[in-house]
């Protein structure tokens, strides 16, 4: 998750002069903001204090961080809007003209400046730029959708976007196709075609609306996407993203020249550093207490502490004696997170692929395992000690598995019957009430909630014990967001439940060391 670690930097009240430092030719005056929404085409030109500089940026950053959390938790657009709107009201209010608020201009100025400050802070790496563009677009989308209808139209008109309108004749000619796109869910063909003819359509290069093309919400013909009026907001957001990405690219090229004001550098660095990546959550370097260094033989016994995603992988591997690439990657780095060493991992995989010849194994699989451990590969891979175990977020945002594959988060990828079968047979969840709740969670796409629910059900006795006896605090029982956290917590809880002798949970004897040397 994002660390909200915003240490204050001593405020220096000397005003920071945007005009002189960056945008020398811009006119030096307070801008007047006619619209609530802003495409941030023009940089701010008036002076602000360093204190404002920092404070405004931090407020905006909080919003962006929360937005990212929402995507992470798979919240719907409506849920996200609901949640973020409250925070916006508090940290970064932006009211419509119709609100007749007396602070309209101040709000808009803050919004304008804070956007540009973060732009500076986040244009330093391609990763940060992409994240910033994505989150700013999400914020813009929320504001656009919640805008007053008339003011929104006025804003869109002010943008002077060059969209080609689709004429009556073409609309009539393509009525069948356009109707199919417009009215997915509406089954009356005649009505659909009529609606299509009456709709306001614009024609753009398909590359301008990739997300509408991907989800087949537009009609595509000879490279042109026919976009219905109701998707206009998508078009506007698309345009926003495109311009922002281009601007960020320019800023990144201009950056070296902007570092002259050394009062800013620490603030900007600090801002971008506090935007740490949410995926680095589990460090495989910290061993699990009482587990020591597990061996290949112990994996079967340990699998009773696995979350469903890994349990399924383990079962599939045992059943089929193979696992496709994505599954192997997901499972292998998870085992690495358990503390399975590279030689043990190689032993484990070699034995698991029991129908594969040594030759085939060495040729096709061995390298990948070594790569995941950073034993081979480019400098960056070695330095990073290979791949980090995948978080729930990673599993939930990766593409769905295709036929023949089993990887991913089963709460998301399995059909209902198969999920319930797996929960019953593989996890031992039989309580109909829990199963019903899981079904409900999954129906609302709250996959990690379902997984946490299953965890709490399976460890109810132990959780009660550590709570009652005050052994663990709330932090240790926080929502699980990583398969390895699931394992670790399960392992520790069961050990505590057994009176906690070290290593007591592992019943498997260690065989002679059978390391596979390279």
């Amino acid at each position, binding site marked *: 998750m994002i660390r909200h670690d915003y240490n204050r930097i001593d405020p220096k009240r000397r005003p920071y002069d945007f005009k002189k430092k960056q945008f020398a030719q811009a006119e030096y005056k307070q801008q007047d903001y006619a619209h609530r929404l802003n495409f941030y085409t023009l940089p701010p030109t008036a002076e602000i204090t360093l204190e404002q500089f920092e404070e405004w940026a931090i407020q905006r950053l909080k919003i962006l961080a929360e937005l990212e959390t929402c995507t992470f938790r798979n919240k719907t657009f409506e849920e996200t809007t609901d949640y973020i709107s409250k925070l916006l009201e508090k940290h970064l209010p932006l009211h419509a003209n119709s609100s007749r608020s007396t602070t309209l201009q101040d709000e808009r100025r803050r919004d304008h400046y804070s956007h540009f400050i973060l732009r500076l802070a986040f244009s330093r790496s391609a990763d940060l730029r992409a994240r910033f563009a994505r989150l700013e677009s999400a914020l813009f989308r929320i504001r656009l959708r919640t805008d007053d209808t008339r003011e929104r139209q006025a804003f869109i008109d002010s943008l002077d976007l060059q969209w080609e309108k689709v004429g009556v004749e073409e609309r009539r000619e393509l009525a*069948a196709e356009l109707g199919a796109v417009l009215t997915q869910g509406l089954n009356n063909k005649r009505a659909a075609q009529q609606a299509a003819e009456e709709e306001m359509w614009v024609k753009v290069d*398909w590359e301008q609306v990739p997300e509408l093309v991907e989800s087949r919400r537009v009609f595509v*013909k000879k490279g042109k996407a026919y976009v219905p009026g109701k998707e206009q907001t998508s078009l506007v957001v698309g345009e926003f993203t495109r311009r922002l990405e281009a601007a960020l690219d320019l800023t990144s090229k201009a950056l070296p020249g902007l570092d002259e004001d050394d009062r800013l550098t620490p603030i900007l660095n600090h801002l971008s550093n506090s935007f740490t990546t949410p995926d680095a959550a589990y460090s495989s370097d910290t061993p699990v207490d009482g587990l020591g260094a597990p061996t290949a033989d112990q994996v079967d016994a340990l699998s009773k502490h696995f979350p469903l995603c890994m349990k399924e992988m383990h079962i599939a591997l045992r059943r089929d004696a193979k696992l496709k690439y994505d599954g192997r990657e997901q499972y292998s780095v998870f085992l690495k997170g358990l503390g399975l060493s590279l030689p043990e991992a190689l032993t484990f995989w070699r034995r698991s692929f029991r129908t594969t010849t040594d030759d085939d194994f060495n040729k096709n699989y061995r390298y990948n395992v070594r790569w995941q451990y950073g034993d081979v590969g480019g400098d960056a891979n070695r330095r990073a000690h290979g791949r980090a175990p995948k978080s729930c977020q990673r599993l939930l945002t990766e593409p769905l598995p295709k*036929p023949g594959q089993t990887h991913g988060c089963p709460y998301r990828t399995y059909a209902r019957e198969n999920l319930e079968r797996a929960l019953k047979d593989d996890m031992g969840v039989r309580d109909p009430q829990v199963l019903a709740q899981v079904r409900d969670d999954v129906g609302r796409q709250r996959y990690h909630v379902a997984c946490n629910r299953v965890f709490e059900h399976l460890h109810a006795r132990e959780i009660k014990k550590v709570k009652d006896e005050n052994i663990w605090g709330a932090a240790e029982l926080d929502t699980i967001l990583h398969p390895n956290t699931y394992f670790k917590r399960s392992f520790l809880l069961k050990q505590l439940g057994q009176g906690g002798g070290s290593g007591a949970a592992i019943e498997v004897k260690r065989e002679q060391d059978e390391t596979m040397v390279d």
Partner: protein
Amino acid sequence: MDSSAESGDGSSSQGSSSPAHEVEKIKMNDIMDEESDDEFPSSMPSEQVALQQKLATAKAISPRYSDPDIMRAFYQRLYPFRFLFRWLNHSPKPSKDFTFREFAFTLQNDAYLRFQSFPTGDLLRKQCISMTPTRFEIGPVYSSNPRDRKLAKNTSEFKPLTRELVFDVDMDDYDSLRTCCQGAKVCSKCWAFLTMAIQVLDTSLRDDFGYEHILWVYSGRRGVHAWVCDRKARELDDSKRKAIAGYMELLKGGDQSGKKVNIKRPLHPHLQRSLKLLEPHFGKTILTEQDTWRHSSKADHLLSLLPPSAATLRIALQEAWASDPSRTGRQKWDDITDLAKKGAGGLDLDTKALHHTQQDIVLEYTYPRLDAAVSRARNHLLKAPFCVHPGTGRVCVPIDPDKAAEFDPTGVPVVTELLEEIDRWEAGEGDEESKVPDWDKTSLKPYVGFFKDFVTRLEKDETVGKKREREDVGESMEF
């Protein structure tokens, strides 16, 4: 994706450090930097004899199609490097489109050599002849020379810029539907699945996206690749590739996810058109040739796809089919329609929902099963056309999409036979001085000819495009 399927290169989009490609090895760069020159006197008599023997062995016992001598002769005499260069270079003089392009070699010892690049097509040819790779792959055009990538100070100095938009369809993904062959085998009956894939994708790429230069290539065993070469397609960034792959992708979910096609109505025009195109194939391939549902386990899967509201119908069918094991797949399919019409014992079944489900099933069984990961990122490497598949010895020849149905994978030329054809031709004509290129002496001729025509059309479009660009610049200069 044939042999590279398990290497999983498709799932990484992080440029230079995908696991399968960063393969351990050998400081090949050292060898490479001392240019290999013309160290290979092309046809020394003793070498000739050795080759003859190898050819005989390759035919007689376990074939080793990728034997170094066979590969060397193949690269020397048959591989159309000239057209490959023109294909990738887009103009007569070597440009960055070619010189900054990554090639990756799979060597005889299975070592994998990435980030190769060549100033000219001829130098690529020379390296192939000297190293005799079992195959080589083509990656993106980078922002700087791939051989100098270590000099780049940061990732923006060395990053993939352009690359053909590619698609990969593999028979692997149809295994649960095939009854004629399993595993690596393929026959003309199951090839029908790939014919369907070619027709659906090719139509959409042309009609929907307006692309014209689409090269379909046989992968040498049981798959096909598409290379969309239009400049606009080459310049797509990864997010747009992801969008187009998503547009094409229909089947969702792995083995455990149940019904894989669940689409809203009315159908999107692309799906409507694809369904129309696939329906006759469905009748021929699924219902007749493969007779997929004859076996009860497969028929059970069919039943599991029926809507929940059809529970009574499902039970009725289950009983009927159990009592008559001789029912064919087609009869079973018709039973669903008939029983539904009759009301199957008074149940109130939504016939429209059932009709939609049947459409979904047609799509689930015939719609292209893409390996979308391959299409999503520019830095994915894909085997070059005209390489030899090491397992089958067959050449990865282009396929004419208009004649996709006539393509027979079992009739594709095999490298050893091609080399013999040259010998036979030369024995017959006896004219050593002849200017006839070697491939024209073999059954590879029509395929090379097809490729040449493709490249010529592409080049023509490129020059027109560039000229127009120059004119545009000229106009704006007047201001």
